[in-house]
């Protein structure tokens, strides 16, 4: 994965840093970002999305540093971000919301409108294109968020807890949508550790602002040792500092 964190320091408040000297490179392909609450997963994705900027060090992708004004627009065109909290603009239909998101990402109005149909098809929301966002269920709204991240054809897609609060059926539908996303780098932060092997090629475990693990999913599952390979067990061992 091309997004690199180079000696990054960041904190929301002075004196309580989330990261002090974070240096690593996100893996290529599909990556799952695991970690307990407060580990810094959302902050890491926020830095990668250029929502936040490090107080020291840099985030870089293809030589672009989003903290530099001249690089920021180019960087953001290459990176799609789906926040935990999907907040559609009141009054817009699903397709208008996606089209507006595309325009915000620098696309022409015409192109954004055209691409919004493709993005809705990608997240299986095409039949709801004309519905107001305020009338959608939580799971549908998450897919709107995903479509917003996809509409401008970004190379890197960052999804922050996309399945949090969804029922098993909605999670399964979301999983199917994610499975169909090919040819892009994908980073998903989550608490759900089931089916990791089917969905993701790499795993990053974050705890206390440091990367505890970054490697292939197979190696991650193997961390559980002699026991039956289990993401839950590997994760528990990593967070406990025993792996």
């Amino acid at each position: 994965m091309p997004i690199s964190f180079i000696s990054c320091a960041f904190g929301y408040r002075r004196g309580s840093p989330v990261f002090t000297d974070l240096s690593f490179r996100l893996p290529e392909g599909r990556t799952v970002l695991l970690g307990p609450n407060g580990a810094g997963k959302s902050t890491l994705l926020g830095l990668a999305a250029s929502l936040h900027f490090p107080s020291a060090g840099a985030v870089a992708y293809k030589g672009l540093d989003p903290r530099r004004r001249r690089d920021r627009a180019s960087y953001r065109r290459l990176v799609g971000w789906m926040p935990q909290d999907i907040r559609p603009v009141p009054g817009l239909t699903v397709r208008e919301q996606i089209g507006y998101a595309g325009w915000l990402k620098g696309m022409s109005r015409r192109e954004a409108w055209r691409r919004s149909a493709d993005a809705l098809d990608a997240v299986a929301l095409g039949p709801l294109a004309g519905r107001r966002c305020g009338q959608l269920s939580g799971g549908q709204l998450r897919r709107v968020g995903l479509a917003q991240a996809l509409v401008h054809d970004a190379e890197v897609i960052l999804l922050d807890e996309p399945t949090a609060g969804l029922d098993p059926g909605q999670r399964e539908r979301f999983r199917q949508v994610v499975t169909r996303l090919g040819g892009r780098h994908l980073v998903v932060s989550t608490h759900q550790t089931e089916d990791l092997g089917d969905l993701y090629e790499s795993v990053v475990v974050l705890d206390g602002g440091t990367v505890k693990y970054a490697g292939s999913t197979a190696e991650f599952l193997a961390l559980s040792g002699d026991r039956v390979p289990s993401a839950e067990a590997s994760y528990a061992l990593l967070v406990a500092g025993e792996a």
Partner: protein
Amino acid sequence: MPLHRWLRSAAALYALPVMGVYLYLLLSGELQNIADNWRDATVVATSSGVMALGPTCAAVGAWEGARLRRGGVLDGTPVRRPAAVLLWSALPIGAAAVAVLAFAFALVTPEVGGIPGAPDPPVVAVGLLVIGAWSLAGVAAGRFLHPAIGVPLLLIGTWLWLAYPQALEPLWIRHLTGENLGTCCSTDTVLDRRVLWAQALVAAAVAVVAYLVWSRGFRPIAVKAAVVAVPAAALVVAVSLVDGLGADSDRPRTGGLECVREQGVEVCVWRERRARLGYAARLVVPASRRLAVAIGMPAPRRITEGAARDRESWHFTVAPQAGDDDVVFALATGFLPPASPPCAKDREFDGDAAYVPVGTWLAIKAGLPRAVVAAKTGPMENGDAVTRVLARPRADQIRWFRRNLAALRSCDIRPVDVE
């Protein structure tokens, strides 16, 4: 996203009928009073537009800003600059404002129909700038205020800013808001461009502050400083422009006359009235000769609706519906001062008593029958005074006229034989 899709959900679309009705209510009372020129029509339409649209557009802006806040538009990672997002959000408001202002011009156009000229572009541009600035202020405020607070706050606040200074002193304060163009313009006056510059400056400052707050929030010290410094600087410059103007935003017109030569006398009317130039000339030239004999002055070489700058130039007006008697009466009463002298504010002024008798005497000397004059001046308590003066020798009448004309211009001279 196509424009019509964006407009579909825009609050401005739903506010459009309200804006139109409000503007119509404001404007309908003014239509009958529009002078026969496009400057007045432009000012009336634009001023009413600013008053009707400024507060509404600001309130709609606050709604739109709150919509974007709830949609987290600037909290994400947009590529578009905040200015583009702001302008795109304000676009439906601007489109509604232009549409309603066009409606205002559609209402005033029949009132000035047939008169040469066109709406004054700088006046319309400044009106739109004022409306646009308050719209942007509304959108910016909506980013921080819940619509339940922001919408009424902007509606009432903007309305107060536009309307309330009219009740304040010094009088020139009203020239800063953008609403007080309404005192301009009769056909012989033009808008003082300093007023336009002052209003444009203040509106531009509002727009700059709105943009800064919208794009960077209130927190940065630079924004806090700019929120104070930019309007303050604009106000200083704007006040220096309008200071001393008084309540009116107009000044005497100097150009735009069209002239014709009639029996050796040059007669000039305002361009808007050129269709009546020949008619007026045929009436005023003989009347002026009769008057010249009566008041003991040489006949004029020029009779004009513009300023009469020397003893050989006389002033008159030929209003759109004026008949023969009206034109001659206007020429005769053109000798009367248009207002009491400045000293009348602080001192006793007796000259007023001479106004009607002198006017009556002049009109009769210009050739109007006494009954016609009486119909114009109304019942005169001191009509006998004029009758007595008319019976005197010519030299006495001239002395009487000159003495009372001087009394009309001074607090130190008492009128004589007017009762």
